[in-house]
């Protein structure tokens, strides 16, 4: 397979909007950098937990949340660099088999926040393949709008789900959500649990 040589062409903001349009009461965790700005640009919600640090945390924050809230869908939106830092988490998550957890990697094959250096996915690392090998229920690398349309319902289907969406490196307008960690925690818990 020479899939890794295909050029990413999807628009990350459109991808985020298409996926989140049907979120309903889903809980969302974002990885630091552009995925956090993407989710904020689509629309702020107290049920978005934006991370601004702790690189490599996003998937595992999603697991803790999914185990605590088995009746709610949990969607993690993160970047390829952030996910590459936590490959072991794929094995940890697959071992728990959370049916309500979906991980969406906006894979632009670059470290966007630090000067656009190439990540390992540009050199052939196949994140969806790793998730599949770890034991995720549904996995896919998405290159086209048609593939995205097919997969959006599956992102809300039986999990654990892992999709790597190949997006361009185009820079979008910065949309910055609140960044105080304690504030983000309190408003999330208040919206979900009705308590601070």
């Amino acid at each position: 397979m020479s899939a890794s040589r295909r050029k990413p062409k999807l628009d990350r903001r459109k991808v985020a909007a298409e996926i989140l349009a049907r979120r309903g009461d889903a809980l969302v965790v974002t990885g630091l950098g552009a995925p956090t700005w993407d989710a904020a640009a689509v629309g702020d919600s107290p049920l978005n937990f934006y991370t601004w640090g702790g690189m490599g945390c996003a998937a595992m924050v999603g697991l803790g949340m999914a185990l605590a809230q088995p009746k709610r869908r949990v969607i993690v939106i993160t970047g390829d660099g952030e996910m590459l830092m936590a490959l072991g988490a794929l094995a940890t998550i697959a071992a728990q088999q959370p049916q309500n957890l979906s991980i969406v990697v906006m894979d632009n094959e670059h470290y966007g926040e630090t000067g656009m250096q190439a990540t390992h996915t540009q050199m052939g690392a196949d994140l969806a393949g790793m998730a599949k090998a770890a034991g995720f229920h549904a996995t896919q690398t998405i290159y086209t709008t048609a593939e995205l349309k097919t997969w959006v319902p599956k992102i809300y289907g039986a999990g654990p789900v892992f999709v790597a969406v190949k997006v361009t490196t185009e820079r979008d307008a910065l949309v910055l959500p609140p960044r105080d960690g304690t504030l983000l925690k309190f408003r999330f818990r208040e919206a979900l649990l009705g308590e601070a």
Partner: protein
Amino acid sequence: MSINWSDEVHRVLREQKVRQVAYVPDTGLKRVIELVRGDKKMRAVPLTTEEEGIALATGAWLGGERSALLLQSSGVGNCINMLGMAIECRIPLLMLVTMRGQWGEFNPWQMPMAQATATVLTAMGVIVQPVADADDVGETFAAAARMAFNTNRVVAVQVAQRVVGAKEFK
């Protein structure tokens, strides 16, 4: 002879309604891990590396559940950057750290991280409570749990190698 300290740890986890218990194994944690895995009220989450447990605890708390992390002192170093998130967000987390490199250690490679364990945890803002006697583990762990969950802090109970015993190479 007092009750086994591992049973005390499990009793505290139960009483405090800790639901997600993450761990990277240590010989000294063997019995606690078995008790957690056998407890239907708890979700045992084996990790590939310790920092996953900090992120798991954050997600668990956001979702309304309490979490604990069981680890060997060698794994403390793996947690440092991720602890920044728990501290910034004031996530309650109870850690049980079993020590190596402290009392009759055989393996020199265990020494640097072991001797730095309390220093680096403290530097990150974690409250460290050492226990040197098996009879004190239960009470200390219970007090640490109350403090962690009542005040939204990360509290680490550091169980001395003298209590867990030095690994024998023979």
